[in-house]
């Protein structure tokens, strides 16, 4: 436990700043864009083909 704490403290201290690369920005933007777009599509599909079933 003590060793683990020391290691993580050292790791946090020596971590260097790495600016966001253009590819990382693309990954984030594409992921969010596909997420939001598919939200609309999947909602429509689920509401159309799997209507809310209120038990039996």
């Amino acid at each position, binding site marked *: 436990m003590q060793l*683990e*704490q*020391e*290691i*993580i*403290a*050292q*790791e*946090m*201290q020596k*971590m*260097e*700043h*790495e600016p*966001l*690369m253009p*590819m*990382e920005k693309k*990954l*984030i*933007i594409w*992921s*969010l864009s*596909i*997420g*939001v777009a*598919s*939200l609309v599509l*999947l*909602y429509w*599909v*689920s509401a159309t*083909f*799997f*209507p*809310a*079933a*209120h*038990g*039996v």
Partner: protein
Amino acid sequence: MAQKRWLTEDKLALILGLFLFLLGMLNFAGVDALGWSVKTNVWTSLDKILSPASGTYKNMSGVVSLLLTYAFITLVLSVGLRFLGGDLPKFIKSFTVVFFISFGCWVLGSYAPIAATPDIVAKFHLKWSLGLTGEAGFIVALVAGIIVGNFMPGVAEELKEALRPEMYIKIAIVMLGAELGVKAVEAVSLASSVIFRGLCAIVEAYLIYWALVYFVARKYFKFSREWSAPLASGISICGVSAAIATGAAIRARPLVPIMVSSLVVVFTCIEMLILPFAAQMGLSGEPMVAGAWMGLAVKSDGGAIASGAIADALIRAKALADTGVHYQEGWVTMAATTVKIFIDVFIGIWSFILAVVWCTFIECKPGERMKFSAVLDRFPRFVLGYVVTFLIMLALCASGPALLGHGKATIAGTGIFRGIFFVLTFFTIGVVSNFKKLWAEGIGKLAAVYVVCLFGFIIWIGLFISWLFFHGVKPPVV
């Protein structure tokens, strides 16, 4: 270099879960092979606490039934642990303590003033009860585990060999598939709706959660890529297994996912103590939303499904007390389980995508290439057990009322063991949650990202997605 074992805890859980399921299935051949297992009743008098699960064994005393159940589970797990390479004498010793403490918590939680729901309060000559159902024992077990883990470190260390919450919950999930298969027969359109909507919910969660957490960790907390990717997977997707899979995919040092995982366990425990009660307060009118929310918001398989089980009990009790509506047990848990199962299935795929992106565009090192076989390697095997038991029971029980009767008898037996593995999960999760880690030097920055992301947007986006896909979907009424 140590040789990699073929048998992992995940595969062992699949085998043990299927073994118990097959024993239960003997009901279809007229053999009640699990009816002797111990059932915990809601009680006010000590002699009523325990009884055998089935009327076939009505002459057996509850204590004998308990001892048989303990001996059987210990034997089955010990055989498994033997092949897993565990320390058997130590396991048996530790497991005995874990079993009886966990079971004691379940018994305590089944005390009528705590557990009796409004429809049975009069039966116990009570004027009032907390109405938490027998599942209150799960919460008692979690709290007991937290106390042992944080205030009795020596005891926790002694119990280490039996502290396997992920294995216990995976065994339970394999059997849960059978239970849900039987329930689904009586509400096929509801079950298919839950499965499809669960799939939609996790697609959303992956795409939105991961990107946001990664962005926050990189931009505002200045974490390196090596730390941010496992951290994003751990916080946003499925805790420990996602952090480890992502760490491997981007070739992070082993230290990174291990540190992230230790944090995940602690926060899972905090979520388990808060979210089911929040769901009971705010979502008793939308039980399935609550179930999906537990699956999306609480990390780790054990944590999410256990939270689903608590939310199931709490919400059914509240709905019964407030509106007189008696929802069928298990559907909220099913929503949580379905969402979590899909999340587990997608971990391998997401890791593959990240590996391709990292290797091709971000940190391309010669000779390093992610193979698609790695996706299959990471596929959680217990998920197969859940799907197989679900489909078998669905197919059999849909064939006619007689087989449905056998199916119900089967899950009555496996349900006892599922409950016991649930309570073992709760207790052991509590024990392994070491809150002191949050005060350790250096971990503050990691914990800060976790707190900001989890409470800042993961819980709320998860709630929104759950509401979007599950609102209006109601469990059958008893």
